[in-house]
């Protein structure tokens, strides 16, 4: 646990831990990673993310990066984007991927679900207007399929069209609202799927 000694002291961590639910060790490790990504500065900008080599082969890279700078994900009811984020915002974004703890009530589980689905929704809704329009959804599908060769433009379009049609087959609507989105992914069990493992021990040294 020597990693903790070079980092800010405990009182700040207490605050962050309460806000995001991470443990002290996890916060310490993430802070170390933050410093590594930002080359020891205080804030991260998009350039830092773009430099991560492993991310390059990811088809939805730009959307992931954008999600970090999207004020709606900071849990402060903000809007719009920022240019640079600090460690606290970094941690808040990461906390969206924490698994729900074992003994939660139904409402807490539902709240976690809404939280995660909201994050996904924000990723799709790039122009911040509260609905995912056809164009935005088409863009999502195109990005997803962008890595495969020989893709016809029409296929992505028709997939997105069919997906939109699934929402309300008989009604007229402008785009997918958050309520629609919840209904669409009702059976998806996102609270068990949208998680990654946050380590308590420091094993990051592998990637840059």
């Amino acid at each position: 646990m020597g990693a903790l000694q070079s980092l800010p002291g405990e009182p700040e961590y207490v605050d962050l831990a309460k806000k995001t639910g991470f443990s002290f060790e996890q916060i310490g490790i993430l802070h170390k990673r933050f410093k590594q990504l930002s080359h020891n500065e205080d804030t991260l900008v998009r350039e830092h993310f773009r430099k991560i080599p492993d991310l390059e082969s990811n088809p939805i890279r730009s959307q992931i990066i954008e999600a970090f700078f999207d004020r709606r994900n900071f849990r402060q009811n903000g809007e719009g984007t920022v240019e640079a984020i600090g460690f606290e915002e970094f941690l808040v974004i990461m906390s969206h991927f924490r698994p729900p703890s074992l003994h939660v009530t139904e409402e807490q589980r539902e709240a976690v679900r809404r939280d995660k689905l909201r994050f996904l929704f924000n990723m799709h809704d790039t122009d911040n207007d509260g609905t995912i329009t056809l164009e935005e959804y088409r863009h999502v599908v195109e990005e997803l399929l962008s890595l495969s060769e020989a893709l016809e433009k029409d296929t992505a379009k028709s997939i997105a069209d069919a997906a939109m049609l699934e929402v309300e087959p008989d009604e007229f609507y402008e785009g997918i609202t958050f309520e629609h989105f919840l209904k669409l992914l009702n059976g998806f069990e996102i609270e068990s799927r949208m998680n990654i493992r946050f380590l308590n021990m420091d094993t990051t040294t592998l990637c840059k």
Partner: protein
Amino acid sequence: RHGHAGARRVCRGLLLLLVLVLLEGSVVFPLGAASSPDVDPRGHSEDRAVAEESQNYSKKAFPVLSLDYHHIHVPFEIALWVLLASLMKLGFHLIPRLSSIVPESCLLIVVGLLVGGFIKLAGEKVPPVLDSQSFFLCLLPPIILDAGYFLPIRPFMENLGTILMFAVVGTLWNAFFVGGLLYAVCQIQPGNPSDLHNLELLPCLLFASIISAVDPVAVLAVFEEIHINELLHILVFGESLLNDAVTVVLYHLFEEYSGAGTVTILDGVLGVISFLVVALGGVLVGAIYGFLAAFTSRFTSHVRVIEPLFVFVYSYMAYLSAEMFHLSGIMALIACGAVMRPYVEANISHKSHTTIKYFLKMWSSVSETLIFIFLGVATVDGPHSWNWTFVTVTVLLCLVSRVIGVIGLTFVINKFRIVKLTTKDQFIVAYGGLRGAIAFSLGFLLEEKHFPMRDMFLTAIITVIFFTVFVQGMTIKPLVELLAVKKKQEAKRTINEEIHTQFLDHLLTGIEDICGHYGHHHWKDKLNRINKKYVKKCLIADERGREPQLIAFYHKMEMKQAIELVESGGGFKPPSALPSTVSMQNIQPKKPAAAKPVQRALPQLPKGREEEIRTILRSNLQRTRQRLRSYNRHTLVADPYEEGFSDFIIKKQKIIELEKKIIHMNNLTLPAAPPDSPTLCRARLASDPQAYRPKRDSVPTIQVDLASPQSPDSVNLMDEFRANGSRREEEEDQGLTMRPRGEDGRREQLTRCLSDPGPSADEDEDEPFLP
């Protein structure tokens, strides 16, 4: 009155069952008498030689009709047993309430007991099936291959750590706990010096290792009927598959050294190494054969008929090769099936896929039935030696050790799992640890001279099997209901879910990369990329097989919708309350309210549009008809989906855009098939179609059997038989027939021209677990 009819039906069913059993028993008896089991085949030929010789001397009357049972008795008896098994399966489903209360495995064991009783009464020798090669070489592989080929890879891999913990550590714990305590109990018998005192530690451990493994056949048989959620199913089932390696090693280890009497540390270490070799070796052998099969399937485009054969033969060879080296044959089969499946399915035709699926289901179903029947028969046969202490202590210890093992392991596992296992989950996992025929066969294989206690072992094994299958098997269903355990999701996969599955994969991989640790998603992503770049190019024949999963999924859905559309003549599911027009134009980006008001009136289609629709439909049908023209035994009907694929899709897109507007076409007043019509089951085929000509005057009703999206892989053979029974006669050469609707509203069947749609949209690797 209603109750009367029901009761009468029940009586009829029971009577039928009884008759069948009596028939089987009575047939076996005289045939058994006719064939003297100890006849010397040499003697027979000698007789013949003598007869020939004597023929030279005195010419006998030429035998017009003679009975020579011995000539064919082996295959005849095998066929008779298979027939019995299948008739039993039929019989159970004729009795209405029985199959929902009692799991089939229990009924089959009872039948086996009855048949065994008959055979014993008749004084004949029971065919020793469960000890010899036939169990491990003939009866077990189809079941395992079926399970392995359709194994849902994604949940299996995600929970692999948990499954391995339960399989390896859990089985080891069970074996040593039960063995040790059993030995202790046997030793402490005060007073009367019973046989139990002679029981050494090692035979005890051997016995415990046989009895402690969860049996895949029993688990499959019982869990198939309770439909619990995917996670629990894969945990218990995966455990039952993977513990084979542990069982093999422990069995051989203790059997080997029971004679010597002691096991040293060195033997223990060798045992551990042996375990690794057995497990990894089995998987390796299976994977090699799997890749071979995938590679072979790349070249089968000209000889489609034998494609299924490659799958079966390569898998069987994998099993036999693994058994040859005393590696784990079960793991080899699983690995072979799981490895070859994605590539083979991309290469083979839809018909071959259906063939493989049906054959695997058929064989595994018959195998399972036979295994349970033979279990019953072998129970009656004996040899038994009942010892109250031993048997009751065994049963008790098995239960206790299972519960303790599961609780303890879950405690450890939950520290590493993201989604923890709840108490309910633990209970189901513990309760679902059924023992089955494999344990019995392993016990049967023990030699009498090395293990004088063999009979007692067998009795105890049978008791444990009966206990788990009957008591646990029958009560697990009501317990699942009582505890409100989450059930399997029956809902159809939607495009949105598919999109978001992919999206989530990439998102989580990206977040892991940002976080800086190479986790689960990172490696999976890397594996996928290697797969796409190198392996698929090698093993998959054409471009279409390599399309990304999302597009493949979408195409399958489109295909299904296209078929539905073409068959129902363009009439779609009637909108519930408000007929409105929705087309892509309705989903406008941000036009103000002036966009499209909901049209309550039925839209009038312009004439030109109707004509266009009809032309599209007709041309599609004509095209499929051209393809189906040639047929002989060596070339199957050309697969219509493999040619002209892309322009079919474009046409289909046009149809989709228009489909919502074709609610009520003026001259085709077809009530569309109601969504829950009982005739909606698997789509059927016929050969040559006739052109589809909608007439203005006649009011045809086309009721269609559609591929049910609700039951992807659960090929319920009973449904097939029930549904197809009435239509057997119509099947041959009957194209697209349209008959006017009967006065009483009886629906006529429409036999279609398109070939089997093959894998439904649900059958990707991420499908819900199949029975």
